[in-house]
């Protein structure tokens, strides 16, 4: 079920919604696409599903070319399951009928259809709502119907466009677990669009970050988080601060960096060279307890984050304020000593 | 009397003819402004009925196809007598004895046939021959006034009677709406024979249409396009002047020039028509026809179905 896109382009008017996108997704992978609003995620999904003809490039699904020069296999022939961002529920059918539709389309036996439909409705906790029309459901309930419909189809390639965006965190984790389970059991190749990084990190085998029609980096979650290829990726994934420092020495995959006059050891790419560099530091790399707190900072702004406060602190000679998690409230202007014990040197 | 003011005329004459008639009258009576409405008899009567019902009939004068209808209106007291009208020259059979309505022309119904037809009928009975089976068109008395009178005349003829209509039904004759439709069916070759009013085939033949009109030996029935003044007329003086004009020799010549057989025996008919004295009219009593009207139509329906 490998999914392969090579140099796919799709423009709306003069705007390139997909700009030379190449991706390779292995069979059975759970592949998450992240990216800011309007960067082309939904367009990517629609192109793979066959809902949007592409301008150039090729798309292969499970070894068969489905789109390319002069070729455009229609969506119904591609056998991909899709959860639409806007749900796209059929208003004239009950919840149950919506979910059963792909199964009936595939001419499955009646008892199988009933059993599987019930099963999928159970999964999304909608059994009591089975006979309602979509118009009589809440936003999150509608989204779950869309999810159940896609699950029921049981396609080997599944595309999901922010399927959990409208759910509360608990239902969301429950659904995540179900999705992971389902994914594992079915062995389907899944492309999952989300803007929730936590979700991406928790679910993904691989994550791709899209930006303005392009794929900036496709990597494992840890790779993307710990070793971003550029500032944009670093800035987008997780909370972070970008500092400038001077690389004093490189030893394998670690570099000795001078920050605000203090030397710190920080992981770095293999070909890092001595000289000025940009360094990314995340809150968990910053300590506010312990003995070696030798960097003096001033608190700029504090926000409550449930259980802890997030502080922006100013470090001498740095443009950006450093993000720090502190266990107790602090006021702007307070001084705070910190130490940095991690981070990443961005490739030049 | 003072002949001036507005005069409202409802007529079923074709547009062109109505216009010509009104123009000629206006030329003779410049003080009168004639407002006229033309439509098929059925619609004119429907309109009039509605106006009666609403209690505000608009017309002073009615110039419509047949005497039976006039007889009916007369019986309801809707017509005004015009004692001064001079009808001495006319056949009394076509004028009302009480001078409430006056025939203005003779529109006869005879046989029309397509010139491609195998038989050239001369008698009504020729249409009962085997060759004519399935090829006969006729207007329905249920919708056409002239056809109603034709039916009344033919069925009261001792030689023909209802047996003749039954014979037509056996021939597969198919009564269609009105005269126009019947004429078109025959002219277009869809049917080959039919009953129709005289002027349609006679006029069109002159233009080259493949049709021929026959005055059968039994005679023809005729509607006489009577004119009458309504008892509710707003301008009776002008209305009387209009009636006088229509039955004057001048008025009759106008009818002839429009292509109709004038009712006045002394006025010559138009081109294509035989001389007036050669045309045999079948006997017809409008009062009796009015009385038996419903029964006739019922009988007709029984014979021909819906």
């Amino acid at each position, binding site marked *: 079920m490998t999914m392969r896109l090579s140099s796919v382009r799709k423009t709306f008017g003069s705007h390139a919604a997909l700009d030379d996108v190449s991706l390779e997704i292995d069979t059975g992978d759970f592949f998450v696409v992240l990216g800011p609003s309007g960067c082309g995620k939904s367009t990517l999904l629609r192109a793979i599903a066959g809902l949007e003809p592409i301008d150039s490039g090729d798309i292969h699904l499970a070894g068969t070319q489905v789109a390319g020069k002069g070729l455009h296999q229609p969506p119904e022939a591609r*056998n991909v399951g899709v959860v639409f961002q806007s749900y796209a529920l059929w208003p004239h059918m009950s919840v149950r009928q919506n979910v059963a539709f792909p199964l009936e389309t595939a001419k499955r036996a009646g008892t199988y259809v009933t059993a599987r439909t019930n099963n999928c409705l159970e999964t999304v906790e909608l059994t009591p709502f089975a006979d309602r029309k979509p118009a009589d459901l809440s936003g999150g309930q509608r989204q779950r119907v869309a999810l159940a419909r896609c699950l029921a189809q049981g396609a080997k390639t599944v595309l999901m466009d922010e399927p959990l965006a409208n759910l509360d965190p608990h239902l969301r984790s429950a659904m995540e677990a179900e999705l992971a389970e389902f994914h594992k059991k079915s062995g389907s190749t899944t492309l999952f669009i989300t803007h929730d990084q936590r979700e991406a990190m928790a679910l993904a085998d691989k994550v791709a970050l899209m930006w303005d029609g392009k794929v900036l980096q496709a990597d494992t979650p840890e790779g993307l988080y710990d070793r971003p290829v550029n500032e944009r990726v670093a800035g987008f994934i997780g909370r972070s601060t970008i500092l400038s420092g001077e690389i004093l020495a490189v030893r394998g995959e670690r570099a000795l960096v001078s920050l605000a006059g203090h030397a710190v050891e920080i992981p770095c790419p293999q070909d890092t060279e001595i000289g000025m560099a940009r360094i990314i530091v995340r809150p968990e790399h910053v300590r506010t307890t312990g003995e070696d707190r030798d960097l003096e900072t001033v608190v700029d702004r504090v926000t409550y984050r449930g259980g802890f406060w997030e502080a922006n602190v100013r470090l001498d000679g740095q443009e950006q304020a450093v993000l720090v998690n502190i266990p107790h409230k602090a006021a702007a202007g307070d001084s705070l000593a910190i130490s940095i014990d991690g981070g990443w040197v961005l490739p030049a | 009397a003072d002949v001036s003011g507005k005069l409202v005329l409802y007529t079923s004459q074709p547009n062109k003819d109505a216009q010509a008639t009104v123009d000629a009258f206006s030329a003779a009576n410049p003080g009168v402004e004639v407002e006229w409405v033309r439509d098929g008899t059925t619609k004119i009567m429907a309109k009039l009925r509605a106006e009666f019902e609403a209690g505000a009939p608009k017309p002073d004068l009615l110039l419509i196809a047949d005497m039976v209808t006039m007889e009916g209106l007369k019986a309801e007291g809707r017509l005004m007598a015009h004692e001064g009208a001079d009808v001495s020259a006319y056949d009394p059979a076509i004028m009302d004895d009480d001078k409430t309505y006056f025939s203005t022309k003779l529109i006869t119904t005879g046989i029309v046939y397509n010139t491609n037809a195998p038989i050239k009928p001369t008698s009504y009975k020729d249409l009962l021959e085997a060759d004519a089976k399935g090829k006969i068109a006729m207007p329905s008395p249920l919708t056409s006034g002239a056809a109603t009178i034709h039916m009344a005349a033919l069925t009261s003829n001792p030689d023909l009677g209802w047996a003749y209509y039954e014979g037509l039904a056996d021939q597969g004759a198919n009564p269609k709406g009105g*005269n126009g439709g019947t004429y*078109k069916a025959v002219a*277009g070759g869809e049917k080959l024979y039919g009953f129709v009013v005289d002027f349609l085939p006679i006029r069109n033949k002159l233009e080259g249409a493949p049709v021929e009109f026959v005055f059968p030996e039994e005679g023809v029935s005729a509607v006489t396009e009577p004119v009458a003044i309504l008892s509710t007329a707003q301008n009776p003086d002008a209305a009387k002047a209009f009636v006088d004009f229509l039955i004057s020799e001048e008025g009759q010549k106008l009818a002839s020039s429009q292509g109709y057989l004038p009712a006045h025996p002394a006025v010559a008919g138009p081109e294509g028509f035989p001389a007036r004295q050669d045309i045999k009219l079948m006997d017809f009593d409008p009062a009796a026809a009015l009385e038996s009207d419903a029964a006739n139509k019922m009988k007709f329906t029984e014979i021909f179905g819906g």
Partner: protein
Amino acid sequence: MTAIFRTERLTLVFLVLTITAICGLPLLLLFKIGLTAEGSLNIAPLLEALQSRSVLRALWHSLESSALSALFATILGTALALVIGLTNVRAKGLLVFLILLPMMIPPHVTAIAWIQALGPASPVLRWLSIAPELGSDHPLYSREGLVLLLTLQHSPLVFLLVRAALRSFPRELSDAARVSGSGATRMLVKITLPLLSPALMAGFALAFVAALGNFGINALIGIPARYTTLPVLVWRRLASFGPDVLPNVAIISVILALVALVAIVIQTVLQKRMRSALVGLPQAPLDIALGKHRLPVEALLWLFVASVLLLPAASLLATSLVKTYGLDLSLETLTLSNFAEVLWRQSVTLRAFANSTGIATLAALVIAGLSILLGYFLVSRKAGQRLMAGIAGSQAEIAFAVPGLVMSIAFILAFIRPLPIVNISLYGTLWIILIAYVSCFVAVGLKPVVAAFLQMDMSLEDAARVSGAGFGRRIRKIFAPLVAPAAASGGILVFLTAYNEVTVSALLWSTGNETIGTTIFNYEDGGYTTLAAAMSVVVVLATIVIMVAMNALTKKVPAGTIPWRS
């Protein structure tokens, strides 16, 4: 209560009163004649009529032919709309245009043309040597023939309606079906058509009621086929000229009204069940690639258009070019004199053009406006408003179902006297015809609009309300543009229907206030078939010019308003 609230209620009251005054009141006056004797209610004649064989037979014939033809028209119209709306056939604009064109020809003229074209004298069939034997029975003179012509006449109604509905169809609903693995056919059957059902229902109802009240085809085919329908029965009763004409007609009209009422109730119940608001943004319509089927499909479409349009149009044209009816068209018989006659010598022609164009346009505009308001209340979330609007809507529906001729009698009854208070008499003016058109054809314009309202996502109204928009502003800024394509389809239907109608204005026209339909009919009736044909040809050409001229508006009106422009 705030002032905003009052506008809404006032508007509703105004609507109901207006429609009652122009639809309900005239009908009531007419029904009264049939149902009262000496001032008290007397339904004995009605019961008698309902037991009369001829009435029952006509009633059955009417129901049968209307239902069958409506069914076929719905199928045909929908199929055309779907093929043109959802696939990649070429020249869509032109096709739409040509499919609508037959509506431009008055129904009785179409009927005559078809009779001619398929009869023994048909030049086309003769040329193909398959013409029926001279004098033999005409194949169209049968129930099937009647149903066929009614179907052809009314399928453009359904076509326009369904096409308007397709425009507001969210693309994603189709997308979801396709990724679920369903091909085009299953998607149509399971998703598209059910979601279009309000429009299909409306189309069926419109075609049904139109067939019920159609006079031209019922008379020209039904009479010789001895297949009497209620409108023909009405005509027969009228042709007896006696004093009981009006009571008779009134009673048959009551029966027709009852049939229409039953139809409305059924329709309302069904539509309520089928209602499903389409949440989602309408996007560029589907463009299903037909692949190798495209050529055959296109060929089929063009063949259909050619046979439905060319056959009657050609025979009409041929008739208009000969000196007298019945002559074969050849170089010797060819003449333009008929055109010269109608265009230059008969002042009535141009007057009729001016009159009909004027009042049909006005009627279309007024009805489009009324429909948007009435449609809003008909689908309102307040039961009281729905009920009030439903009362008005039913009256409009009955006015459409009752044959035009009967409506014009009713109008005489209602408007012959000067209007109270203002003391102006409308009888004998063009205005009475305009009012009659509005009265008779509101139902036509209303149908597509209601279908559009039924599909609308009501949160769009919610958003406008919380933005502070009162009733008037919501109507103007939100609803009117959103249902504009439907209202325009309705308006165009009204225009086309009114432009050529014969029966409504039959008793209401007067010298100087002629309409195209009555003029053609009078030519025809007076035996001037060739002039009638010439005038019809001119009408068709004029309509084409009007339609082409409307193209210029494309940029100024909401997308989809002009059906043949996408």
